[in-house]
């Protein structure tokens, strides 16, 4: 046959909980009321934690901070589907899921306040440090996946990145490698519509980001990223496939960055207030609360208790941050190599000699 079809591509989108809080029972993941309340609590906690960082920044007690407001459902949902052995490889806007994977909250604050100790997580926490070079972390996701596979660990690597990061060559190489080596890696794109001032349609001409999976012969799916149930369903499916030898998956979670890119950015320079309002209406936290209330799983009173508990928790984290002892100036030298080489020892003495004088 002269003109034949050699490939046919279909990409699906999953939605379970609509903005009004109505649930598609058929597709809903199995979750106990306790779990649902827990998910909701996690998301409320993330938001309070994020808002506090912005306050600290305005007070000069925090460095540049990339807010996660609006992206809580993606992070809570994926975390919910992860197990102990899984590794998380974040980009830089994953504070929420990092918290849920065991990174002490005050360390994340410390990191963004400009203290490297903030990336020294406890031994048992399987989380990579923040990766600032956009897209570079995708490759680590493939490598960690291959590492788990070679060692026969029934666990997966979960790598995160933004819509903009899909334009970097590293995204391509990472997913292509994951396809070739069939690594247990789940690639989660937080498509929050913007890369600083660049909207998605200036980032790529493809209709969806999920369809990029077709280039690598791996499954890809788009989910409503403000719908925590859809995120959990997609993440569970992908993670179970990964852990059982089924290879990698690309998940595009469609969400929105409600805040500025970072505290150094002014989003009003490049986007319409109306667009932001529209997305405020799709708030992932509000949506879950509506659902819980409709099911009698939540009420004003519980909310009040939670708000208080969370506020206190956040204050404790700030307390922990401020109780961190000052860094030893030698730290910038002593962690460069397993053993301090002679020339660094000499430079360290020069440097710290000055400091103490």
């Amino acid at each position: 046959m002269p003109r034949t079809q050699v490939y046919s591509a279909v990409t699906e989108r999953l939605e379970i909980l609509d903005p009004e809080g109505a649930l598609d029972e058929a597709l809903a993941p199995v979750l106990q009321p306790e779990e649902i309340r827990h998910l909701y609590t996690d998301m409320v906690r993330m938001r309070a934690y994020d808002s506090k960082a912005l306050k600290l920044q305005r007070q000069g007690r925090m460095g540049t901070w990339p807010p996660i407001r609006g992206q809580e459902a993606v992070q809570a949902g994926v975390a919910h589907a992860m197990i102990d052995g899984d590794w998380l490889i974040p980009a830089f806007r994953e504070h929420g899921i990092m918290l849920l994977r065991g990174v002490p909250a005050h360390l994340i604050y410390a990191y963004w306040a400009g203290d490297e100790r903030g990336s020294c997580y406890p031994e048992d926490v399987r989380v990579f440090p923040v990766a600032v070079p956009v897209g570079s972390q995708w490759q680590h996701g493939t490598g960690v996946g291959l590492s788990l596979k070679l060692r026969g660990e029934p666990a997966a690597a979960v790598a995160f990145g933004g819509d903009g990061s899909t334009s970097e060559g590293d995204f391509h190489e990472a997913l292509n490698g994951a396809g070739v080596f069939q690594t247990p890696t789940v690639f989660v794109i937080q498509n929050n519509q913007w890369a600083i001032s660049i909207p998605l349609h200036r980032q790529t001409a493809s209709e969806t980001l999920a369809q990029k999976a077709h280039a690598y012969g791996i499954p890809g799916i788009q989910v409503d990223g403000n719908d925590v149930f859809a995120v959990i369903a997609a993440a569970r499916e992908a993670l179970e496939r990964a852990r059982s030898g089924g290879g990698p998956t690309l998940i595009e979670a469609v969400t929105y960055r409600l805040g500025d890119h970072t505290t150094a950015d002014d989003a009003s320079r490049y986007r319409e207030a109306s667009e932001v309002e529209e997305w405020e209406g799709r708030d992932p936290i509000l949506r879950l609360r509506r659902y819980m209330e409709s099911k009698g799983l939540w009420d004003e009173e519980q909310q009040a208790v939670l708000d208080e508990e969370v506020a206190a928790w956040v204050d404790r984290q700030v307390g922990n941050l401020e109780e961190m002892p000052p860094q030893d100036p030698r730290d910038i030298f002593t962690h460069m190599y397993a053993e301090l080489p002679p020339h660094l020892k000499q430079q360290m003495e020069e440097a710290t000699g000055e400091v103490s004088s």
Partner: protein
Amino acid sequence: MSAAGTSERLTIAQAVRDAMRDEMSRDEHVLVLGEDVGIDGGVFRATDGLIEAFGPERVIDTPLAESAIIGMSVGMAATGMRPVAEIQFMGFVYPAINQLLGHAARMRNRTRGRLSVPMVVRMPYGGGIHPPEHHSESYETLFLNSPGFKVVVPSNPYDAKGLLSAAIRDEDPVLFMEPKRIYRAFREEVPSEPYTVPIGEARVVHEGDQVTLISWGAMVRVCHDAADMLAREDISAEVLDLRTLNPLDRDAIVVSVTKTGRAVVVHEAPRTNGFGGEIAALIGEHCLLHLEAPVQRVAGWDVIFPLAKNEHLYLPTRDRIAAAVKQTLEF
């Protein structure tokens, strides 16, 4: 280089923007591209207003891909355009190195002159603004041991405008490093009309006869402060602003050090194999018999540029420079 006619008090960031505006008006083939250079005006506002003035076909917001920004620029420059590409921070130049050094720097020689790459790559560099990781680096040496790029670093608004215009008119690829730490630190009278400052000429910004402080970019002011401080102790330091690292104004270095007999090189990049080593080697080659003391290097330590809280431990300071000067005097 006439400074006649009207002038304005501009910051380095504004001077950079004006140079692009002038050159885009002068030559329709000049275009600006990079991440967030359009409606956002660049994260440091260095391209502020350009898209309004010249439109999205000449002020191009690119996808988030440094290798593409440079690779596309190579294709455009080799076929008649004059791209002025921005890399948002020098710490993010790595993904573009293959296109920069593997192609842009080689095209003229590779084709024995048939194709050339008249392109400028602007990048804010250096420390002092307390940002996250990868936002404070000085990677000039990437371009100094590997030939093909001219490397220019202004230290003030006047030079920033004149050198950038010269870079855009240059027939070869030019790396234009912008000292982000002093983008807005001060204003200077800058001629309103277009002018150029020649690439390849250093400048003595402070006369002295006991020691030569050799530096570029943001460190020039720190050397200046050190010289002022030393003057109060009756130590006379000359401050040489290299302005161009390649081609290097070797004569200016030799003349000054031959006069003073002592030299301190100051830069932000780590000490080992930094450009300070090259300058010290050159001084050794050309001034050995005039040297009263070993050339001192005040530079970053051989460590990763620290996050905000430890930045002060890393960057050369007035006091470190002064101490080095005294070492050369006490040798």
